């Protein structure tokens, strides 16, 4: 009986661990995705702003559009953990 209980404990613990790994992957991978997406946009936006300062608002807007990806990741992670 004790043996069975221990097995259930182990399964539970490993489930929690898997959830934590999943949450970590969700945030980490989406973060990388956002970074890759913002890399090109950010560089181009800074170039455009250097040419014409009025572009700041629009440049910022375009640069932060991929932010949504990592927010999705964060939401999934939080839903997994709690």
């Amino acid at each position, binding site marked *: 009986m004790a043996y069975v209980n221990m097995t259930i404990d182990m399964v539970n613990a490993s489930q929690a661990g898997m959830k934590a790994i999943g949450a970590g992957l969700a945030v980490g991978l989406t973060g990388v995705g956002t970074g890759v997406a913002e890399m090109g946009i950010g560089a181009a936006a800074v170039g455009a702003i250097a040419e014409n300062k009025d572009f*700041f*608002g*629009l440049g*910022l*807007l375009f640069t*932060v*559009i991929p*932010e*949504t990806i990592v*927010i*999705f990741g*964060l*939401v999934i992670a*939080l*839903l997994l953990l*709690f």
Partner: protein
Amino acid sequence: MLAPKPMSRVLIVASRDQAVPIIQELYRGNLFHIEDYVDQGRAEYEGFKIGTPLEGATEASTELVKVRAIENVFAIRGEDIDAKQKLSLPQIRSQIEQDLPGIEKEVEELTGVRSKLDTKAKEYEQKIVELAPFLEIPVDLALLRGLRFFSVFAGYVSGSLTLNVPHEMQVVKGKDRSFVLAIVPEKNKTETERLLQDAQFQAVTIPEENGSAPERTAYYTEQIAGLKKEIAAINEKLARIKESHAGLLVACEEAFKAKIEQAEAPLRFATTSKVFVAEGWVPADSTTGISAALEKVTGGKVFVTELPVDPLHDAVPVEYNNPSFAKPTQMLMDIYSRPMYTEVDPTLMLAIVFPVFFGMILGDVGYGLLLLIMVLALRNVLKGDDGQQFLVVLRNASIMSIIFGLLFSECLGFELPWAPIIYSRHLNIGGGEAGAGPMIPELLILTVWIGILHITLGRTLGMINHARQDHGEHRIKTVLANLGWITVMWGILIAIWSMFTIPLMPDLTKLPVVVAGLSVGLVIAIVFIVMGVIFIARDAILELVELPTIISHVLSYARLMAVGLSSVAIAMVVNYMSIGMFIGPALKNISILGVLMIIIGVLVFLLGHALNLALGILGGGLHSIRLHYVEFFTKFYKGGGRKYNPFGMKRRFTED
């Protein structure tokens, strides 16, 4: 409110001898936005030419350049100076005549002397650099020059050097390379050169000095110190001039600038040999005031009339029309783009919603108070309109952040003595305290609700904008397309409600089934979605590609919770590390090591919270403004309005 100030188009015609009083009056009024006359051969302007500047424009320009040159020397900027007293124009004029030439001359002389001294100091510094290699060789440098039977070689070699000719050599070992001074008989010169070349010799010129290198270096150092003292004295004199005359200089700049702008105004008017015509924009409520004032200064010798305005096709300049509490937020609007004349001006909504979003993200009493203190402290440092407006926006945001901190019961990541009034964001870091933990699903759905309402508002404003700007069939199509976006969104929502039970949202799963196994909710949802899709497709079929953005934009508001929660997590981790790991154990039994641990703990606490505050301000501000720019404005707002830039100046240092 919610719309730019109404403008009227005004035409002023007068004979050319009335130009000066009219221009002065318009400049004083600071209301008339001049529409520049361009020689395009418009029929009603046949025979008109661009005007010529008034007298005195050139002189004033020259003077302005001089005043600005002095200001540059002192690094004076008008916006950094508090206007103590306003000087009247006659006062300035007399001071310009009396004091300005004297100041100009003195400053010019002083800066001239200073730059000479600077050059000399640089020269001496260069000499010290040249002497540096010879410092370790105790020989009079004069002896190394003008030798008839010997050649002198000075320079760097890498590695060791052996000369198999008669020579005398001094070597100063360096880290990578050694400095060599070698004297060889003249007849061995060629051979020595070859040997040196093999050792990768880099020649150094022997300084034209009399005396040994250390002596000369000491002499030059002393000289430089003397020069530095003289330069400091001059700087002090300049600082005194700056102190006593800064007010006058900025007043002069303002006076000359005003004079030039007035003198050059006719360049923007249409003129003939007898009359001139000025066209421009005036806020609708000041039209009568302006025409009365012009009648008065010219004694009735002016014709002022209002022209019809076509708001859609005329490029009407845009001036915000907001209640005073929303005015600072105009800065955030200008960063994006000024609204067009026919558009709804969302400044007021931004002024209310932006601080709320910021507060939801950074809801923490401690951080809010710190930010508030920072803003109040910066008020005297940041001058200029933009800076002040920015600070007011931040101040409002920090107050909201304190309010939300009280609601979330958070202070620097600690719990306040009451339970969270709205949903809890407390995490259980370190595993110490037991509690409900963060109420993630509730917070998530709350933010989704905010998103749904915000986007519905945006689309509704889009309907209003299109109804105002478009015509005929196109108008109906665009308005319906915006309605279509709303119905699709709500249709999807109703469909979700009919299929799943979600906390904080209506539960439609229990509704009776009507047709083909579909409940009432689902049928309504399908009708909504299909209707919306048809409306959107009728306007532009390609827009259907954008349908998934309905979901992504609504979910994007989840950042209100997610970003905030991450900042709570950082704060709690910092607290756990500093107090749980360093300070707490150390306080149990105090020892020398314990004191050290307490110090480390306090450092971790301060650094961690400083970092988190910086991240919180950046994250809170950027994410709240982004939700407006990307999710809200894209639904209705185009922008691109022309700035209302009236002819005149806000006088700060001068008065008429």
